[in-house]
């Protein structure tokens, strides 16, 4: 797997396999990231597809000022915020679909996150405010640096540091309530 930039360049030069590689490499992580915004794995999947679609039809320039992945996640974030503003509706999964919904969400997180311990932490994130979830997900699960997270979340690094501190405290409390103790938090 390359970092996505060369795949995107090939796509811009007319090779559709470039965008296919990007979808394969980034789809799962992007869905889980966007799920943090919309709290509905199916909506997050739609938003991820919309993000790739935006790349396909608008073909924006990637200037290389950040990593391709953080650029892609920034686009995904904007797609999600656009949707939230317009739909004004967070979760509309019919109750009869909830079982399948949870099963799909768990399958996806298992295939992407793998470590059981991290999966527990990921689920605890759901109980935190949006900004806390976002910053913890980007830094601890996706491995972005503070600088990259600041680009994606449209905040400065100082805000990210403060946010991260408060988010860790909040997560620690949440995990302790569940009976888990993690030294790293």
């Amino acid at each position, binding site marked *: 797997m390359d970092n996505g930039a060369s795949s995107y360049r090939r796509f811009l030069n007319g090779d559709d396999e470039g*965008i296919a590689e990007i979808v394969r490499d980034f789809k799962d992580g992007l869905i889980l990231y966007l799920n943090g915004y919309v709290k509905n794995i199916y909506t997050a999947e739609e938003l991820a597809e919309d993000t790739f679609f935006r790349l396909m039809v608008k073909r924006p320039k990637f200037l290389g000022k950040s990593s391709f992945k953080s650029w892609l996640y920034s686009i995904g974030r904007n797609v999600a915020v656009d949707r939230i503003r317009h739909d004004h509706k967070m979760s509309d999964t019919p109750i009869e679909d909830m079982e399948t919904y949870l099963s799909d969400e768990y399958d996806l997180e298992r295939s992407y996150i793998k470590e059981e311990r991290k999966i527990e932490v990921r689920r605890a994130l759901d109980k935190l405010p949006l900004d806390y979830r976002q910053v913890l997900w980007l830094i601890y699960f996706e491995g972005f640096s503070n600088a990259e997270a600041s680009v994606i979340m449209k905040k400065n690094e100082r805000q990210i540091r403060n946010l991260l501190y408060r988010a860790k405290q909040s997560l620690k409390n949440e995990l302790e309530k569940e009976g888990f103790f993690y030294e790293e938090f």
Partner: protein
Amino acid sequence: MKSSDEMINSLYERRDNYISERKARNKTIVKTVSAVFSVCLVALIGVGVFTLGWFKANDKPASPSDSTSIIENTEESDTADILIYAPNHDENDASGGIYQGGTADSLGRLSISGANYIQIGTANEAVGYTKKEYLGKASEFSDLYRKFADEDGIDGDVYSVNESPDILLIYLSNEGVVVLSSETNGDPANVLENDNQNGGENIGGINIPTLPATNEIDLVGDKITEEEAKQYFEETSASIISSLSASGVEADNIRISDTGYCHINYDGTAGKNLEIRQNFRDYLVYNGDRLVAIVTLTKDNGLLSSTPAFGGEWFDDYNEFLKQHEGQKLVYLYAGWMEIIIAPDNTCTNPMGLDVSEYLKGIEDPYKWFYNKAAVYTP
């Protein structure tokens, strides 16, 4: 959920549909514009013929079939297609004719004072913009338009627009209109597609609307009274509860707030006062003591209708905020698309947990500045 391959196939399919729709739309516009252009041409020829006195020399009325043939030929004209829409591809191009913002082979490009602009639309997209300042002839700023001017005799007048510093309009001498956007304006990582662009500061990709100079408020819209709302909810509560249940929200002990609230709106439009739309009113829906939804009542031509926003746990933080400020008068705003709630101690929140800290910076006492009893709710 879709596998990667399923998503890729779905994307290809969507792109094909998108391209087909664009082509169909462009074709319709080309035909319409060409037809209008042709009629003008025929009229012009007619005037010319009349002025030159050819009628007198020949004394033979023009055959209807002559003018028909002119229109038909013009409809198929490749020239009109190229000049108005500036396609940037050939038939074998994988993009299939869609706009390729930022790619090197894009036509419809223009460079003014070091800034590059790319064509993003035509007459349809131009509707939302108004001319601000004449900047010059298109041929002065672009090799492509110089070529059009030299080879086809069609140049254009370039204008900035009142609505955005990133948009230019070109009024072509063949009646076509082209909309261009600056390249920096197009990066979707920086720009929210539907963001308010009326006026304000763009911070982190989100437009923060400029505040009006004064806090004067215009009351607009057909007011929804609490009595009307109460009657509406009595009649429709069963369907609201049913919608909530179907959306996975616990709805075994539903209660709708006795009073609702309007919002103070502003979108950065210069010269426009703060505004309270009295025909939009939000009501809080609780299950037990948990806030599970917000229902927006709207009144149009005297008729009420509702739009529920289901929140579930998304509203827990907002619910906590309401509890913390119980008995206090909270002020509700819409800054562009962003909903902001201000408490008397000037702490702010958003029902969906979005960060609103940037919006009210620079106002010494936002609560006092915005306060209006028509946009207040007391939890």
